[in-house]
């Protein structure tokens, strides 16, 4: 059986403006929610300490509690998003909550890579474009194939590594692809002096 990700094409929704820098994965999904052994069900814990008070009641002034954004699939944020812990639970939580696209001037390396493994598209744009999107209140359409973000009267182009783009568009499973290279892996193992632990 091949387990494939859902293929990614277009996303249309309003933007959730989340103008914060250095958002770390401890904030995205606090550690008390890392104890599950599944990949699903993390959305309700997303930004838990920012969303809820100590009694577990929603904080009214936190943007994700604003019903205006409840159907939003696009998070626009500021630099170095997803820094800190490597926990993939951060991406699982964002996706489970409903975000398919995250747009930022920069991402932390491990988080960026984790997004692609889960069918979430991280887009890097310069700060002027980010500021424009943070202000933009209507629906936008994001088309991965043409690498365009359509606002009502203009387009913003974005760059993405072509290899990652194809994997995301087709929903390819990395392990399936790698196993096609099995002969090369075996050759490497035979040719190199890999030191066994035991």
């Amino acid at each position, binding site marked *: 059986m091949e387990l494939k990700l859902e293929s990614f094409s277009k996303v249309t929704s309003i933007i959730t403006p989340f103008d914060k820098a250095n958002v770390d994965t401890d904030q995205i999904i606090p550690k008390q929610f890392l*104890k599950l052994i599944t*990949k699903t069900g993390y959305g309700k814990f997303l930004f838990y300490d920012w969303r809820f008070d100590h009694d577990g009641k929603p904080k009214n002034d936190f943007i994700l509690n604003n019903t205006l954004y409840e159907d939003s699939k696009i998070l626009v944020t500021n630099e170095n998003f997803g820094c800190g812990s490597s926990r993939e639970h951060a991406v699982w939580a964002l996706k489970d909550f409903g975000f398919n696209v995250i747009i930022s001037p920069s991402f932390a*390396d491990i988080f960026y890579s984790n997004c692609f493994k889960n069918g979430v598209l991280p887009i890097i744009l310069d700060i002027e474009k980010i500021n424009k999107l943070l202000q933009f209140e209507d629906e936008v359409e994001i088309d991965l194939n043409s690498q365009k973000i359509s606002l009502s009267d203009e387009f913003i182009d974005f760059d993405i*590594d072509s290899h990652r783009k194809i994997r995301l568009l087709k929903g390819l499973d990395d*392990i399936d692809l790698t196993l096609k290279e099995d002969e090369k892996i075996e050759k*490497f193992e035979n040719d190199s002096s890999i*030191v066994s632990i035991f």
Partner: protein
Amino acid sequence: MTETLFEKIWNSHVVVERENEPSLIYIDRHLVHEVTSPQAFDGLRLNNRQVRRPDLTIATIDHNVPTTDRSLPMIDETSSTQINTLEKNCKDFGIKLFGINDPNQGIVHVIGPQLGITLPGSTIVCGDSHTSTQGAFGAFAFGIGTSEVEHTLATQTLWLEKPKTFEILATGKRRNSFAVTSKDIILSIIKEIGTDGGAGHVLEYRGDAISDLSMEQRMTICNMSIEAGSRAGLIAPDEKAFDYINNREYTPKNYEQLVDTWKDNLMSDTNAKFDKSFTIDVEKIEPQVSWGTNPAMVSDVTGTIPTPEEYGQSNEIQIASAKKALDYMNLEPETPIVEIPIDRVFIGSCTNARLEDLKDAAKIVKGKTVNPDVNAMIVPGSQMVKYEAEKLGLDKIFKDANFEWRESGCSMCLGMNPDILKPGERCASTSNRNFEGRQGSGGRTHLVSPVMAAAAAITGHFVDVREWS
């Protein structure tokens, strides 16, 4: 053509390379723990896949294990489930597990080197960002997500884009090599280059001030490479590195032969080009204390809490971050660091809980008593560190001073087990992250070295440990 150390390691591990595509890189060592692996093993089962190289893979339990008496049943059922799941996964897939009652149990990045599993020139991964610790041995060691854990289990390889190289040159000599530690060096570096200064890069720490450090001190530096946003950090291995891994339980049988190869190969060539470079003079470094909610928000112990404007200069985003941080930390600008009172002290974590850290902290503590308003605990990085410390009588020094002496694990570095701060509590911590809520929801973390944490436990506030008597 000249190459950096990182490029040499990379080039010797390329399995597949194609133009404008990521490369397939072979992984020599895969370390697994209970929190980021269950979904990976599930993925293998769903697809009928095996672990390709169990002989290159080990597992331990560290993140959510209790640090209190382990003969008692675990109270937290979800933690218990996660631990039982790893035990079952290791059994089903034939992976060696250093389990909860194993004398080799400990924080994954502490036991790798301690068991002689971490080798120079190798590629090492673990589903934990502080895997970079093991770069101290001249390895390319980096953290990965759970999907990549599954990929490594199934294929012993990873698709990676080649990171760039970043030289961190540390010159000069520390003025007080007991009070100014490698923790102070790495915090000073992060303060300067920022929490994303190393993004997309592998750092290579070089210079006399690095050679001068012991292996355990070097591990502290490489450990926090991720806090500067970098993919990994490494140091060219020398005699100290080779000696450290000799005569360990899993030191390779052909150790002597390997050392000869390592000596010939594992250094950056003279005139090798780095993509970026940064120089720091360690002579000017003082003991450091973090005041904010990211590891770049750090001050000299003789300094004061900066105003948001001083911290952010003209960067609006940074000014806003500093305001939010000061609000969260409940600190006023211009407060002297030494006037900040603390409630808790945590000496532990993969950053600073090895034997030398505990020995240094014990020198500060010996014959003194923890301030009655402070609760202080020591969590050794591994059961082996705990055993060695007890052989030296360090446990007695700490217990006599009213420190709690615990079993090993990640503990209050991230608070997945019952060791957490209460809301509002302020902690001097030898760990690596001062993020909001990291050590417990509403808790306030100040990152410091083990000697600074030990001194703060005694006095109840931060002190300049250079003046300790």
